[in-house]
């Protein structure tokens, strides 16, 4: 029977997994994340097909890894491009559905009694106690209930037979559970209902808006109407006044037009782009030249203690970047940094590394060279070992010195196979967000720019500031700039693939 059981078990398991997956996808779709839900639906379908069809055997081994890469690497990239075409920002944060629900949950205080509310513990549950603020009607108490995730729900309140004695909920907990309590409608003995209107207050409250069939909202207090405007991403009054919260809508190419035409945006962006180029090319030049010279020296057989030097010089590569960058941030500190301490003792100068744009850029390059040369050194050492020794013997016979050897034999022979690595190093530094963000944070800033932009900002740190540090949270604009950077990186990659091919061809 085990065979028959297996034959039955496998499809059963598959269907079960499919159902569980569908439940989650529906839940995600219900929050208005249709794009993500769609991606997950495709993934689920692919999963079921691959693990049930015998034709797709090889893909069963690939699916988990490739699936994760597609969902968590490729999808976010495509989604970034998508966001670049929307007005997603702190003002237009919610999806249309959630913004509508937010407005529909708004209440206003209607005529009726006001109660002072307290919550009292009872066997791990809580009782709500409502005391008439004017002392007209009796004090009301609900049955004990559990506090859970926010949801709309109702409970009855009855006149208290005995006074509630349980310990009162602290203000901090009250604030923490506020969302849950806001979903509560308390039914009064006389048929009325009250909602939470303040942290310690329940009163008759009615929904502020009613949803009409045409998608507009009617204000129950003054009967005015709100219409959703899908151009601006706001509900608007008849007078065209926007009502918060806004929602996310497509705005087409607006961000891209702004990037290339809006003077207030284009000027800092152009400067940042130039600095990004300068920063990454100089880093590659410095790291490679230092690394290559060291590699030559460390391959020189007449030199002793080479393994000791190698170990020490490798250290910067082994120390976690976020630590060494922050150490440098402290060491370079204008007033109390140890580097200025040494400089002022030796030369009597105290450079302002963090407030002068040029010095800040110099510091960034020094730190990045410190971080990056060991990698180039190790790579070059491997490449130099591969150069046949008879070349040097021949040049020694011809009477060439070490400099001639370096410039005529070593460098040309190393540079060719190194080119693809140089390009990928360039691409890496082009997006070296961690260095800029932890060392200077882009500062010092340009003066007179629309959004804060730093003289040491590179493109990616600029978009990060735009999206996560400014009060504006301009996700849409940040995503549009990211998309432009995507294209730049893609161009660099194409050049790299070409260079790799050339490096390979010459090897054969």
């Amino acid at each position, binding site marked *: 029977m085990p065979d028959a059981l297996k034959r039955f078990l496998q499809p059963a398991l598959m269907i079960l997994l499919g159902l569980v997956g569908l439940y989650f996808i529906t839940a995600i779709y219900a929050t208005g994340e249709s794009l993500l839900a769609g991606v997950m639906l495709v993934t689920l379908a692919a999963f079921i097909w691959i693990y049930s069809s015998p034709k797709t055997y090889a893909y069963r081994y690939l699916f988990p890894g490739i699936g994760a890469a597609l969902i968590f690497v490729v999808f976010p990239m495509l989604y970034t491009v998508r966001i670049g075409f929307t007005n997603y920002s702190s003002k237009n944060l919610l999806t249309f559905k959630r913004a509508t629900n937010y407005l529909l949950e708004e209440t206003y205080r209607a005529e009726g009694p006001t109660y002072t509310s307290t919550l009292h513990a009872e066997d791990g549950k809580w009782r709500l106690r409502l005391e008439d603020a004017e002392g007209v009607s009796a004090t009301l108490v609900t049955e004990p209930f559990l506090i859970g995730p926010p949801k709309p729900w109702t409970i009855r309140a009855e006149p208290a037979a005995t006074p509630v004695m349980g310990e009162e909920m602290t203000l901090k907990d009250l604030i923490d559970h506020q969302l849950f309590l806001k979903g509560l409608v308390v039914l009064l003995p006389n048929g009325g209902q009250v909602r939470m209107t303040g942290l310690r207050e329940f009163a008759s409250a009615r929904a502020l808006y009613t949803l009409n069939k045409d998608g507009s909202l009617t204000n129950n207090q003054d009967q005015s109407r709100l219409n959703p405007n899908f151009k601006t991403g706001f509900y608007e009054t008849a007078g065209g006044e926007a009502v918060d919260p806004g929602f996310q809508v497509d705005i087409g190419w607006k961000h891209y037009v702004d990037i290339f035409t809006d003077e207030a945006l284009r000027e800092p962006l152009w400067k940042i782009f130039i600095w990004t180029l300068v920063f990454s090319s100089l880093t590659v030049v410095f790291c490679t030249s230092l690394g290559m010279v060291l590699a030559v*020296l460390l391959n020189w057989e007449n030199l002793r203690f080479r393994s000791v030097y190698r170990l020490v010089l490798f250290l910067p590569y*082994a120390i976690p970047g976020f630590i060494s960058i922050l*150490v440098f941030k402290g060491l370079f500190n204008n007033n109390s940094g140890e580097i200025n301490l040494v400089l002022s003792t030796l030369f009597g100068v105290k450079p302002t590394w963090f407030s002068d744009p040029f010095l800040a850029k110099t510091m960034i390059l020094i730190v990045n060279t410190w971080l990056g040369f060991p990698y180039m050194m190790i790579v070059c050492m491997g490449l130099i070992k591969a150069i046949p020794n008879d070349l040097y013997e021949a040049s020694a016979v011809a009477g060439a010195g070490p400099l001639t050897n370096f410039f005529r034999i070593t460098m040309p022979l190393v540079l060719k196979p190194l080119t693809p690595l140089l390009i990928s190093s360039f691409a890496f530094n082009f997006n070296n967000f961690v260095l800029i963000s932890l060392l200077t944070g882009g500062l010092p800033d340009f003066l007179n720019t629309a959004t804060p932009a730093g003289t040491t900002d590179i493109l990616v740190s600029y978009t990060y500031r735009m999206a996560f540090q400014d009060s504006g949270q301009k996700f849409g604009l940040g995503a549009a700039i990211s998309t432009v950077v995507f294209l730049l990186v893609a161009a660099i990659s194409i050049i790299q693939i070409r260079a790799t091919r050339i490096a390979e061809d010459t090897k054969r």
Partner: protein
Amino acid sequence: MAIVIDKSQRWRVLLAHLFLIALCALVLFPVLMTVSISLRPGNFATGSLIPKEISLEHWRFALGLPVTNADGRVIIPDLPVLRWLWNSVKVASLSAAVAVLLSTTAAYAFSRMKFAGKKAALVGLMLMQMFPTILALIAIHSIFSRLGHTFPLVGIDSPWALVLAYSGGIALHIWTIKGFYETIPGEIEEAATVDGATPWQAFWRVLLPMALPILMVVFLLAFIGAVNEYPVASVLLRSQDQLTMAAGMKQFLYAQKYLWGDFAAAAILSGLPISIVFILVQRWMISGLTSGANKG
């Protein structure tokens, strides 16, 4: 090369040594400074590079022990360093385990099986690696913050969100493991298949035990990668108690609250183990990097 060592040669050796020693000093300066700063009393003390008196106050701070100030006040450390370290270890172990799990099977298919789209998939993985995660940061933040509304377990501030976000970056690991599988002759598994093993059994019982060393290396590399990752962690983790070391460290050096000495102790505490592990596994990584350069 048996060349007679002449006078100019001797000068050159001396110069080379001087150059290398100077450079080693520059490399070691920040490292030794950090050790010295962590042992020097006070967070603002300047004037000496070598501490005149040894104080363990910064190490007590990093370990979360109460510190008695010079004026007698007791300070309870407000930056939970050990907690951050534990968060880092937790997230990194989980995501390294996920990375090994996902990449080892994929590498098996790439090295031993024939299927449509193999070459395209390999090139695609390589290309994917060229685009840094930082470019998709806005989307990652948006996806997880919205997922969190429905499933708080994978929302902002959840270590699971971070593990998920890291699980896609396995292209390099697939290449590394694939390279190792290809050094193992396929005849061994073929023999097992002849004896009636399914491809899965050949993989699980025969190939995988032989590949354990490389899986260990990939685990450690993924572990280090996750510990050192800063951008995604800084965007997905917000509350003080959930931060990883990489996301939390910068809080030591805010201009308003400059804890230079405490930072140095915390930096050594978290950096030393990682650096040692890194030096132990680096030769596999370097060989992977250079072979990638040659093979493309």
